[in-house]
């Protein structure tokens, strides 16, 4: 089935194909970060969090501010050294993740807990939260677009045997893979992870076995939010700008990815995200206006054959 992604080779030169594949994988990784948080939250808590996009935006802004501040102190962002660049970049993402993780915890306690069990009211209340969080950004940072600073060594591209490969997408893919593997291993190998997997299947039973599932709810919500935040920071670096409404644009893609992959499954999110990222990039090159259409088509086709997504309810 993966062979489908080789079809574009018929229409595109191999070198361009490689460039597009790399950017497609990178876009996929970024989508994965946002979608996986949403998917896990829905799978485990059974909560539809429409404010997820706003948390994504918060992540972008926090990493923007922390990067700028740290750069002013240390200058690591402007230095030529890849290592210093990486350190400051990762630190800014980490801060974004921590801050938004906390923000997520507060949101879960205050806004989500009262509406457990009713998807409809979750939609209402998270929409309110989304508006509030987005507007708060406008108040604190101003409503205009800002330029996102990018570490020097991430700019530009490498030349591999005549194939042009942009540098930042490689970083994005790298970070994405590391995060995916970390989460995957935590879920599979640790006791907490096993409990979370059990909770995706049957939250009531997990309680009956003596675990305070509400603590887990808060934790998973926080981690899902942190993932969105990291995704936000990375996305901002990718498109080199931030604006208060950026979450709204990405959330629809993330939603589609989460549905395609199967809600509750991390592996599903990764695969769905890569599919969407790759197909979008190939089609955007060939027929620019049809790029979004291919994503919708993917959604429709997958749902026709697997109404619950590729990996329903489980890793």
């Amino acid at each position, binding site marked *: 089935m993966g062979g489908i992604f080789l079809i574009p080779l018929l229409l595109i030169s191999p070198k361009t194909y490689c460039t597009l594949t790399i950017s497609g994988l990178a876009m996929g990784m970024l989508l994965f970060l946002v979608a996986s948080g949403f998917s896990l939250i829905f799978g485990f808590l059974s909560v539809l969090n429409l404010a997820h996009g706003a948390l994504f935006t918060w992540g972008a802004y926090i990493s923007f501010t922390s990067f700028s501040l740290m750069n002013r102190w240390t200058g690591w962002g402007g230095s030529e050294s890849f290592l210093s660049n990486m350190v400051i970049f990762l630190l800014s993402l980490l801060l974004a993740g921590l801050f938004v993780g906390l923000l997520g915890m507060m949101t879960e306690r205050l806004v989500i807990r009262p509406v457990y069990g009713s998807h409809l009211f979750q939609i209402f209340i998270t929409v309110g939260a989304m508006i509030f969080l987005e507007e708060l950004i406008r108040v604190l940072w101003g409503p205009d677009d800002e330029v996102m600073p990018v570490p020097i060594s991430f700019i530009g591209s490498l030349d591999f045997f005549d194939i042009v490969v942009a540098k930042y997408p490689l970083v994005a893919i790298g970070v994405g893979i590391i995060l995916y593997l970390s989460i995957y291993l935590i879920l599979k190998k640790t*006791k907490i992870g*096993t*409990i979370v*997997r*059990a909770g995706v*299947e*049957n939250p*009531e*039973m*997990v*309680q*009956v*076995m*003596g*675990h*305070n*599932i509400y603590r887990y709810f808060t934790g998973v919500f926080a981690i899902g939010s942190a993932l969105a935040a990291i995704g936000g920071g990375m996305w901002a670096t990718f498109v080199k700008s931030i604006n208060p409404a950026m979450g709204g644009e990405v959330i629809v893609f993330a939603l589609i990815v989460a549905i395609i992959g199967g809600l509750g499954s991390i592996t599903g999110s990764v695969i769905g995200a890569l599919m969407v990222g790759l197909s979008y990039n190939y089609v955007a090159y060939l027929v620019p206006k049809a790029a979004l259409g291919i994503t919708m088509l993917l959604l429709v086709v997958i749902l026709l054959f697997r109404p619950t997504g590729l990996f329903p*309810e*489980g*890793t």
Partner: protein
Amino acid sequence: MDKPILKVEGIHAFIGKHHILQGVSFEVKEGQITVLLGRNGAGKTTSLRTIMGLVPISQGSIQFKDQSIERLRPFEIARRGIGFVPEDRGLFNLLTVEENFRVAMLEENENTKKRLEMIFEIFPDLRRFWKSKAGILSGGQKQMLAIARPLINPNELLLIDEPSKGLAPIVVDHLIEAFHRLKEHTVIILVEQNFYMASQIGTHFYLFDDGRTVHHGRMVELIQNEEMKNKYLGISTIPSRGIQD
């Protein structure tokens, strides 16, 4: 030895607008296997769920080892030493047998290992399928896993809802054997529709009708009481002889 380990007094419970339990009382002591009997919808499963904290009670009290537990949350009740096996077994099908136990385990020490050995003795299939996903087990094996899981903890009380449901008779026999062995380790409350199974392993019974407990006593008494069996369980072991008599 004579004090009841669990005492349920006059509980009422609602599910939505339905007044499901309208005055349920029972108690169980150590060394007993108590069976809750009665027709469908009489309130047996709901009673178990209220003990476990999954259904709130509007009236009455539930005391476990002399402590009130009716206001506690399910995970707190589980930690007090009560295990629960629901009607649908509640297995985590995508997890392996081993992982199912891991989730169930509240602590890990020498005793846990010993208990696991005991579990394997009673249910040898679980050792064989230790690393397999729970979802691929047969119906009987799933039931074994469901019952065995809470045994990994030093639970003093086990609540089991319809263990024989959907099982072939030969598997039921195996289960009956297993229950006889379990009796020594923990107090069991059973909800059971299968009267044969109930009579084979139960020491005491409580009869439910319309959300109330109406009769109780020793199992041996019930086995011989055709009238009660017929009236509350709709079963009879006397071949029908026609209209008169």
